[in-house]
């Protein structure tokens, strides 16, 4: 499968070989303790190195954003509402030990340690486009495994129509939760067929290493055809339900944030246009680009929504 990504200047595309060679080099240099020899070293990931294979089939050809862009500019209200807050306020967060409670309409339920969750799944790297509901975008090399493979292990029953995810609630460790800007804990959800789609990814790493705290360590979801807020972070609960889950942003402003939240240039947010986006890290005066239906993944996912009025189910 190939992704058509229009209007990307050829000069902006790093050939994967170059990108990976540079990465391998960097990792080697770091291992040798010679990071200071490389000017780019300060942008190097700081987590533990992961074993993974690269999934080219599910990767876009655009150049990924810089590590410091991905880790220094994002929304994660559990650590504060400014986009610099997650990095600034998550340094002392310890994502260990970690467990995930699985419940609801499933044959296999219970509390699993993170190790239990991860053990059977080979990791792969996928370079995905990321589109925030605030009309900015990035390209991000995630490391993870298909959500579908995880879900299958829990043997959801015939009644399971939706899967609901919950973020850790711990105001001591997540200072942003001391303010009631959202109804904590953060909850997100997918329809079962969306969750089983091969593009839906459980993510544990970024740039080949374990996820930094500010990007949702130790376990997060990535649904690349939906606005970023659907891609819930620091997951501690997975629940299979018959009814559509009440998701956090949808509850906070139902007329602005729908349950589906598929990237859709034709349906504006009531307060801003979704027709275009600004690409973070792009060249001066060349950052604004047309937003693509389903964030460029229409060919793969549009079928999930056949017959649905996407203006109504935004």
């Amino acid at each position, binding site marked *: 499968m190939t992704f058509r990504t229009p209007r990307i200047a050829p000069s902006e595309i790093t050939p994967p070989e170059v990108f990976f060679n540079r990465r391998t080099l960097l990792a080697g240099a770091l291992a040798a303790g010679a990071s200071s020899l490389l000017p780019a070293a300060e942008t190097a990931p700081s987590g533990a190195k992961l074993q993974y294979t690269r999934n080219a089939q599910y990767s876009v050809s655009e150049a990924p954003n810089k590590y410091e862009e991905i880790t220094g*500019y994002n929304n994660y209200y559990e650590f504060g509402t400014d*986009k610099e807050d997650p990095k600034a306020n998550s340094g002392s967060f310890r994502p260990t030990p970690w467990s995930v409670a699985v419940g609801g309409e499933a044959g296999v339920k219970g509390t699993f340690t993170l190790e239990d969750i991860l053990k059977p799944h080979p990791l792969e790297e996928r370079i995905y486009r990321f589109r925030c509901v605030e009309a900015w975008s990035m390209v991000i090399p995630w490391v993870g495994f298909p959500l579908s493979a995880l879900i299958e292990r829990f043997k959801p029953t015939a009644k399971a129509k939706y899967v609901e995810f919950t973020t850790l609630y711990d105001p001591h460790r997540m200072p942003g939760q001391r303010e009631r800007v959202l109804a904590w804990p953060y909850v997100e959800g997918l329809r079962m067929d969306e969750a089983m789609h091969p593009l839906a990814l459980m993510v544990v790493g970024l740039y080949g290493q374990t996820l930094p705290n500010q990007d949702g360590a130790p376990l997060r979801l990535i649904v690349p055809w939906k606005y970023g807020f659907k891609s819930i972070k620091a997951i501690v609960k997975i629940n299979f339900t018959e009814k559509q889950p009440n998701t956090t942003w949808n509850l906070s402003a139902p007329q602005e944030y729908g349950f589906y939240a598929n990237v859709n240039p034709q349906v504006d947010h009531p307060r801003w246009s979704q027709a275009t986006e600004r690409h*973070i890290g792009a060249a001066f005066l060349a950052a604004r680009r047309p937003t693509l239906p389903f964030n460029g993944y229409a060919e793969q996912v549009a079928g999930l929504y056949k017959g649905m009025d996407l203006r109504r189910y935004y």
Partner: protein
Amino acid sequence: MNVEQRYRRLYKPLVFLASLAPLAWLLCGAFGWFGAGLGADPVKKLEHEFGKTALNFLLLTLLVTPVRNLAGLPHLLRLRRMLGLFAFFYVVLHFTVYLVLDLELNFGTLFADIAKRPYITIGFAGLLLLIPLAVTSTNRMMRRLGRRWQKLHRLIYVIAALGVWHFYWQVKRDVREPLIYVGIVAVLLGYRWVRARAKATSSSGSATVPERT
């Protein structure tokens, strides 16, 4: 130096330089001087900082009269025009960043935004209303317009209200900061309202002649 000279030779130049500090700091960020930076999204950073600075100058302008009255510093009025013009200056920069760096000069989107997005409509109204105030800020215009000058310049109350309203509406969720600004504007405008009422009830109603600033 008498008070007049102190204001002219000392305070005004100092306030002028201090008012340029936010711009200077953002320029340092843009060029990476003195370790300053604009973060991963420099355009939003500039847009937000200029917007915030513009609003701060609007509030400073509105603060002059109450401080002058309450602290008994009649000459403070001499700083007001400069603060107001800096508010205009930063609104223009804010708008320019939006149009040039954010929209990349896409005028179609600009007009669509002004027409369709209430927070932009309101901000734009604020910008337009500031223009006649800036144009009539000279001594000559003040003299020429006489009593009407003061009436015209009461528009600043409307502009400040539009400014905080615009701020409040563009926030995604965390409205704590805009609410603080709403509170400050409420106090500043409330002060005028109370004074006006007190004056109206205490007979005379003698109109004040606009003062040279």
